[in-house]
């Protein structure tokens, strides 16, 4: 849940990057951290295993400047993608205002994407949130691998698998090169801010 400090005129909003393991959630945040270093005043926090996999979450506070006199602070989080960490995924989802679902566009990952999205749906229900109502953006990541001859699902198939009912904005992306990473971020921020305004003001 977002928080508004009326005295200091600060709005804090929580955006979580969700998706299957090794899908590129942390890479999204790392790219944002490099690219927008001027808007990021503190270090990116990463709680990871020795094997560089996310253990708990990554955290990146992002300053959006002022909107209507209020300073907007976007708190970006990732969840650990590995199947076994669902308990921690749920903890990170607490109070979420907006979500980016980072799907892995490789053919081999098709089923894992669907499973992860289903689990997100279940996890949100536990917080009495609905995947159909919460601001959500789909990101089909790793499309750059197509050039290396790795089989990548056509966007139409990903849309059919993941977004046929949700019908949320989507982006083909490459977290590695940064392709559509800022676009995804901008989209989720604008959706989330509108939703928070409706809820709280």
């Amino acid at each position: 849940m977002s928080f508004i400090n009326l005295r200091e005129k600060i709005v804090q909003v929580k955006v979580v990057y969700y998706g299957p393991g090794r899908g590129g959630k942390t890479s999204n945040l790392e790219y944002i951290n490099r690219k927008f270093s001027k808007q990021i005043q503190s270090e990116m926090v990463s709680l990871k295993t020795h094997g560089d996999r996310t253990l708990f979450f990554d955290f990146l506070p992002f300053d959006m400047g002022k909107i209507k006199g209020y300073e907007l602070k976007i708190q970006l989080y990732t969840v650990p993608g590995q199947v076994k960490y669902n308990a921690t995924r749920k903890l990170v989802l607490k109070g979420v205002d907006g979500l980016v679902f980072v799907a892995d566009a490789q053919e081999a990952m098709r089923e894992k994407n669907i499973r992860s999205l289903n689990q997100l749906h279940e996890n949100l229900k536990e917080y009495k949130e609905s995947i159909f109502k919460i601001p959500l953006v789909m990101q089909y990541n790793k499309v750059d691998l197509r050039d290396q001859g790795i089989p990548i699902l056509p966007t139409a198939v990903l849309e059919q698998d993941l977004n046929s009912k949700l019908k949320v904005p989507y982006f083909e992306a490459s977290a590695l090169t940064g392709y559509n990473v800022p676009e995804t971020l901008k989209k989720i921020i604008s959706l989330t801010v509108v939703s928070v305004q409706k809820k709280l003001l």
Partner: protein
Amino acid sequence: MNYGVVSQEQLEKIDEILSEQLIKIGVDCVIIIDMAGNIITAKDNGTSKYDVYSFAALAAGNFATVDAMAKLVGEQEFSLLFHKGTDCNIHFSKIDEELLLITMFGKHISLGFLRLNVVKALEQIRKLWGVK
């Protein structure tokens, strides 16, 4: 209780309580956060500089983890959460289901004295918010 928006008046009163009960006895920094990792208010002694936003995210995660562990062993909650360092200590206490009070203090304050003052501050904050 709706804490999504806290009025200026409420925040000022809370800051007063924190200053009076905790900063005055020599605490370095005190933060109120929600369980999602947002900062409600932060107050320090003027000399310590912490990255409170990252701290809030980690503290909320830490508290939630310990809470989940308590449930696993059949406890309702672990009521004392305290980290001891050489120069800095961190004490966590729950204000209610959604809010946490985090106190950072040095070696010159005893844990017992701190806890007494934390309890007083908690009582006053709960009263202010009408939490039972």
